[in-house]
């Protein structure tokens, strides 16, 4: 959540001047090479291991007599780091301590956790490629989830129909919610960053309110919806004990769809043209304002579907906080994936792994949940750093090197 601040603050405006050769901040982030991203992840993991060791009680104790018996200190530090990362591995990829089928359950948990991030991240990626800094995935996810929940708990329908209807409702409501920001930008020039942030707040309070009424809370006295019925749930892919549901498959299909949209379709070409240069796009006869609205609707529809998969597949009940930090993590995911569909899927899987691994890190290795969040935040910080560094022209060598690979990426 706090991570978004680092990305948002430097405005993309200064580079608008035509004589300025440097691409916009957003463009620079999207252009950072795979090497930078990979090293950012590695550096973040290394930096976090220092924190893991520092937060460990045994390490702290051993540090008080570091010079008397240094072996204790390094031993304890190694134990802490090793147990934390092995717990992460056991929780997110492969549990070598479990029996039978449960051994591969962690990787399915990673896929499960990445599902809403893929969908919301894809939506944001379309926006970023079109030059729209959409911060509103959080609200779109929540509104989509709420719409899906409402269909699921209010109506009765046969097996396949019910879940499809609920997902469609999420797509429509999510799209309309984001469409408000696109419409305001197109008609009045309202800044989409501010509008989407405000829409996030409105969504949270609107859903909180609806959860106190019979619309979403059913007959209960608590601000939590009744569980969605079996017909409206996304079916499991592998069956128990795996929780992985069809939402993940839908998310992968959506990634392929977004790839086709951006790289192969006329509409996607227009989106990208608007993102590359609004003035040129307008001169070329592209209706830029219409594109703003369409981009936001597409983004919101994907994010809304992400919310639906979270409720209909994973959580089964809706709360005001059901969106968790999906919408904000998705911003990181989209930027980390350089706003390409494949990159977004991979980045979402990385974040899903961190999320799936965190319960075992807490219970088995006593690593505070905050450390996991710190790992995520440091990745973002390091991804966001190269353009910052370059814009301050401190490290010319790096700037040149990344500039070259950046051109390749843009071509």
């Amino acid at each position, binding site marked *: 959540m706090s991570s978004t601040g680092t990305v948002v603050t430097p405005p993309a405006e200064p580079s608008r001047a035509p004589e300025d050769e440097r691409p916009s901040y957003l463009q620079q982030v999207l252009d950072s090479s795979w090497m930078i991203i990979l090293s950012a992840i590695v550096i973040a993991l290394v930096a976090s291991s220092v924190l893991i060791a520092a937060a460990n009680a045994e390490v702290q104790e051993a540090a008080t007599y570091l010079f008397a018996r240094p072996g204790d200190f390094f031993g304890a530090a190694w134990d802490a780091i090793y147990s934390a990362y092995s717990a992460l591995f056991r929780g997110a990829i492969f549990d070598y301590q479990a029996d039978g089928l449960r051994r591969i359950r962690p990787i399915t948990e990673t896929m499960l956790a990445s599902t809403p991030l893929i969908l919301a991240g894809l939506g944001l990626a379309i926006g970023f490629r079109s030059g729209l800094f959409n911060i509103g995935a959080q609200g779109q996810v929540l509104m989509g989830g709420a719409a899906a929940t409402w269909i699921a708990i209010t109506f009765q329908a046969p097996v396949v129909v019910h879940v499809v209807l609920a997902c469609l409702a999420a797509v429509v409501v999510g799209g309309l919610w984001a469409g408000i920001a696109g419409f305001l930008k197109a008609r009045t020039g309202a800044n989409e960053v501010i509008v989407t942030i405000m829409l996030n707040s409105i969504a949270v309070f609107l859903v909180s309110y609806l959860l106190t009424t019979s619309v979403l809370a059913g007959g209960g006295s608590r601000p939590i919806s009744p569980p969605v019925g079996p017909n409206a749930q996304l079916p499991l892919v592998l069956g128990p004990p795996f929780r992985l549901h069809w939402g993940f498959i839908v998310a992968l299909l959506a990634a392929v769809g977004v790839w086709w949209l951006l790289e192969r379709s006329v509409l996607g070409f227009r989106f990208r043209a608007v993102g590359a240069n609004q003035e040129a796009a307008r001169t070329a006869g592209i209706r830029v304002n219409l594109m703003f609205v369409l981009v936001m609707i597409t983004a919101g529809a994907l994010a809304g579907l992400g919310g639906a998969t979270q409720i209909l597949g994973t*959580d089964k009940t809706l709360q005001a906080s059901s969106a968790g930090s999906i919408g904000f993590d998705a911003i990181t995911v989209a930027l980390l994936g350089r706003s390409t569909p494949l990159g977004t899927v991979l980045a979402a899987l990385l974040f899903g792994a961190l999320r799936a691994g965190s*319960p075992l890190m807490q219970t088995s290795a006593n690593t505070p949940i905050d450390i996991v969040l710190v790992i995520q935040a440091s990745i973002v910080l390091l991804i966001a750093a190269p353009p910052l560094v370059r814009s301050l022209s401190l490290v010319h060598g790096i700037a040149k090197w990344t500039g070259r690979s950046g051109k390749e990426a843009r071509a």
Partner: protein
Amino acid sequence: MNRVTRAAALAAATALALAACAAAPDEESEESPEAGGESTGEMVDYTACMISDEGGWDDASFNESGFEGLQRAGDELGIETKDAESTDPGQYASNVDAMVQEGCDLIIGVGFALEDAIEAGAQANPDINFALIDSAFSDTEFNPVTYDNAKPLLFNTQEAAYLAGYMAAGVSETGTVATYGGQPFPSVTIFMDGFADGVARYNEDNGTNVQVLGWDKEAQNGSMIGNFSDTEAGRTTTEQFIASGADVILPVAGPVGAGTLNAASQAEGVKVIWVDSDGYLQPANEENKDLILTSVMKLIGNAVFDTIENAVNGEFDATPYVGTLENGGVDLAPLHDFEGQVDEELVAAVDDLKQQIISGELVVESPSATPTE
């Protein structure tokens, strides 16, 4: 500038080096506590685990109280404990699953939000015991259900809040008292229900007309700030109450109460009633503790400790624990600085009501209280 940095770095390095200079503990001394620790009990092969809701263990509210109970059980019973904090609802189920994988014997969920996760865990793992704080179990139709291996820990908080309301009405000089909550959860509004009823009882007994701002028990509607963290919102809400003439305030929003204390310290003659634990004894309230009239205590830690202790002794049973004035699960805190300032007749009347509630002569009701039968 540069010199300053260098000097600071040197000082920091020296401090670190000095801090690391302590003598290594002897191997023997490490073993001695175990050898001499027979009185405190040797390590028991039992693992008690606890999962927080979104608030986390440092929420200065029910997560923290519950966690203290778990830590006390770890220290005093010599059992192993594990804990996991949740940052959003999506993690409840996976945290329960991780606990099951880690071989926990008893898994405690804090807060009604974990009901589904604990319920699913109890159904899937009949040989593991579960407990849930602040909520009983119900099915999709909201009908109560029970499990042989899942114990709800509930609190008749309205009983203690009733006494607080009675006392507040008696202490108020302006004839107006106020309350507000964090969010309209049953575990919050139960305080406000009892408080409002206590004030009404005082009016009935004394022919007065003390008003309650911020809560309407009939409509189950009142002032909510929308979260359990925005101290500033607590401060402005309290200022509005004070401006409307209220001089006794009951904030039911965990750490947000600090904002109320702050606002009360700026006004003349305004008193605060704390919730969950004895606010007078909390280090964070040190500065303004003389404003705390009393506290509506909900002793979650004790309930957790007792549940774990029984389970360790093989006496776990799934019948709900209900904290009442009778068993000390809820209580009104001592008056501390207000001892002697509050009218003795009022104190006697409150004590009398407490006895009536304990004897069952007086029943304080709240729609938020979970029916246990």
